[in-house]
């Protein structure tokens, strides 16, 4: 008894058992038939190996071998045919654009071809004899084994391809993926083992131990385990449809003709918070209310909804509310289809889309809009308020302004009156002072003429000097007052500087001669200024007489004019007493005299003040410069050039 025969015998038996197990253990599923058949073929191969080994001669071995290959040739035809015919329901006649009959046309010739092909290898050269009996080999490997693996790989790959092609990898459950991995692993292990045991011993001149069927057993065991552990690769149409329905994001609810819920998809259950069991048998109205707050209308709409549904068979895009298990209302957009079976109303298929998120967004938008409107309104109110306040303020200001104007006018009037009174007072005072001066002025010289006594004459001389001084003082004060008053008017004209200076100088000629002063008039004859001739004469008179007054005998006075951009600068220069810087600034003040030494000179101290007024009244400037006491001084003033001179 050759114990090594146990291997093919047990392989055959166990493989057969696995095939039967796979076939019967879960007969509800149909895909297992496929695998069952596959394993059954493995059993046949094991049996073939056994029969070949125990053949008495080569021809018997060849006979068994041919028998086996016939089965192998049929195997792909049967399996592929089964594979394609069976899932046809899911594939919906889409079989890669091929019809069932095309498959048959294609498959049976393939079967015949394979049969011929395989039998080509079954020749006496391929039969190897060893101490364990005969063995049919192909490329050194026991051929039925090789071919069965080849077969298995093709079919397995095809099945996987079809499944993933139609359902997508994502649809494969985790367990299915594991199953795939397990089977792939099994194939790799077994193929390696088989080829290894067949190819390696001959390299060392050893006979190959006939244990190929063991690998078939091994793989069958893996297949059986995979099927048991992870179930069968499921290709059932109902289950596929379930996957589709369950994975859709919309809720799907099916009722019977009494509007009682019979089924719902996973989305619906999740959304409503019920289990399938709880939901089944519930009235659809309990979980679905058509969108309206008033019950009456809801009722009417409900009736209409059903009527519409029955007449049109389909309604789409209706707003509704779904009532969840915990009493929440979920806004939804629903579509309903009436299910008919041979024109008999069987129920309603309702799909609902959750609008919570959309509603929330819409509400948010609404709120935002309302807020915005509120804000706009508030702003508008504020603006109006502010505007009103502004108007009030403006009115107040205008009132105030009017009052102010009135007040200013009043005050101005008062000031004007006061000024007038002042002027009047000064004029009256002047009059009152001048009147007694007249007799003094006239009578004292008359007396002096008739006096022989030298002493008396001398005393009268002093008195007359005082009277003259007083007369000057009074008239100049009055004149200054007049210049400051609003009444005085200047008659502006073109004035020739040379001629005016000449006429003034001629008045002082006697003075110059008396004091032996050198006078030089350097003013050109073509210089014209704008001004009042009489006032300008006074101005020149004041400055020249001042110069003459404060220049000691033998001194020098120079009159000079310099043309500038729009003005003419006139200088009256002397080499007289001079003054300090501080004095130069104060010299134009009323009644100012630089120092006590000037009191002995008969002067009112008003001449320069009057000069300043005149220059300012003409829009010019007047100032004095001196290098200090005893260094002489220069008085400058500016006057506007006459227009004529410009042209």
């Amino acid at each position, binding site marked *: 008894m050759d114990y090594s025969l146990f291997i093919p015998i047990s392989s055959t038996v166990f493989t057969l058992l696995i095939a039967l197990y796979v076939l019967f253990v879960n007969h509800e599923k149909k895909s297992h038939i496929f695998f069952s058949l596959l394993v059954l073929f493995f059993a046949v191969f094991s049996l073939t190996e056994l029969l070949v080994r125990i053949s008495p001669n080569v021809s018997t071995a060849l006979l068994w071998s041919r028998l086996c290959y016939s089965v192998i040739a049929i195997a792909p035809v049967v399996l592929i045919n089964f594979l394609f015919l069976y899932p046809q329901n899911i594939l919906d006649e889409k079989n890669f654009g091929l019809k069932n009959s095309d498959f048959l046309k294609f498959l049976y010739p393939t079967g015949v071809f394979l049969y011929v092909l395989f039998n080509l290898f079954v020749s006496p050269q391929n039969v190897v004899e060893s101490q364990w009996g005969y063995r049919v080999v192909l490329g050194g490997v026991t051929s039925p084994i090789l071919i069965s693996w080849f077969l298995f790989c093709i079919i397995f790959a095809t099945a996987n391809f079809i499944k993933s092609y139609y359902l997508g990898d994502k649809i494969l459950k985790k367990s299915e993926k594991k199953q795939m991995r397990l089977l792939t692993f099994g194939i790799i292990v077994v193929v390696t083992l088989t080829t290894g045991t067949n190819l390696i011993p001959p390299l060392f001149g050893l006979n190959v131990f006939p244990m190929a069927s063991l690998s078939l057993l091994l793989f069958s065991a893996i297949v059986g385990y995979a099927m048991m552990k992870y179930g069968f690769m499921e290709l059932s149409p109902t289950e596929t449809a379930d996957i589709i329905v369950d994975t859709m994001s919309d809720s799907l609810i099916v009722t019977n003709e009494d509007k009682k819920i019979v089924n719902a998809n996973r989305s619906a259950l999740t959304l409503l918070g019920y289990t399938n069991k709880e939901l089944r048998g519930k009235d659809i109205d309990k979980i679905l209310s058509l969108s309206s707050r008033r019950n009456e209308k809801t009722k009417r709409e409900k009736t209409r909804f059903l009527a519409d549904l029955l007449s049109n068979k389909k309604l789409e895009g209706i707003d509704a509310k779904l009532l969840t298990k915990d009493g929440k209302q979920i806004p939804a957009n629903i579509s309903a289809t009436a299910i008919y079976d041979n024109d008999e109303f069987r129920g309603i298929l309702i799909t609902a889309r959750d609008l919570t998120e959309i509603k929330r967004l819409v509400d948010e938008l609404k709120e935002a809009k309302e807020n915005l409107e509120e804000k706009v309104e508030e702003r508008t109110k504020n603006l109006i308020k502010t505007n009103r306040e502004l108007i009030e303020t403006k009115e107040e200001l205008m009132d105030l302004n009017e009052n102010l104007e009135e007040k200013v006018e009043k005050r101005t009037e008062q000031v004007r009156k006061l000024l007038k009174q002042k002027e009047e007072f000064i004029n009256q005072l002047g009059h009152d002072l001048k*009147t007694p001066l007249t*007799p003094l002025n006239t009578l004292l010289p008359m007396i002096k003429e008739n006096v022989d006594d030298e002493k008396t004459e001398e005393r009268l001389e002093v008195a007359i000097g005082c009277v003259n001084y007083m*007369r000057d003082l009074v008239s100049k004060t009055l004149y200054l007052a007049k210049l400051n008053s609003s009444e005085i008017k200047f008659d502006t004209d073109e004035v020739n500087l040379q001629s005016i200076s000449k006429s003034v100088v001629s008045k002082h000629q006697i003075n110059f001669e008396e004091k032996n002063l050198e006078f030089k008039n350097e003013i050109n004859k073509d210089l014209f200024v704008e001004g009042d001739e009489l006032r300008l004469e006074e101005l020149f008179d004041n400055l020249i007489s001042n110069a003459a007054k404060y220049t000691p005998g033998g001194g020098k006075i120079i009159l000079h004019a310099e043309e500038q951009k729009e003005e003419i600068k006139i200088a009256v220069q002397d080499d007289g007493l001079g003054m300090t810087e501080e004095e130069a600034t104060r010299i134009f003040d009323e009644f100012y005299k630089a120092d006590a030494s000037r009191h002995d000179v008969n002067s009112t101290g008003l001449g320069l003040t009057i000069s300043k007024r005149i220059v300012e009244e003409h829009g010019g400037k007047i100032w004095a410069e001196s290098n200090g006491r005893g260094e002489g001084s220069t008085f400058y003033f500016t006057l506007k050039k006459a227009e004529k001179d410009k042209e």
Partner: protein
Amino acid sequence: MTKKIMVVDDNLETIYTLKEGLEDLNENYSVYTAKSGEQCLELLKEEKPDLILLDIMMPGISGWETYDKIKENSRWQNIPVVFLTARSDNIAKNAGRYLGHDYIEKPFDIEDLNKRISKIIG
């Protein structure tokens, strides 16, 4: 030939000064005086002078009014009048009405006044 000059002024010192001064300067001048406008008009009725020196600011009727009254009367209207005033502003104010009329501003220089008078009445 004696020239009669009437001086009208409310200030006695002024009247005295003018009389003394003018008569001293010119022997031909006979100066007589009135202390007011009213008195001036009274005196005119009795005697017609060759020249009137008329003060403007006087109590009672003013120099201006007196002047108008003189000029209203056909007998007197060709008597030359020289105003005397301490307030040149008065002249300026009434310049429109009395423009061209001679005036002497106080305090006057007696010789200057004498020259002016002799120009008018020779």
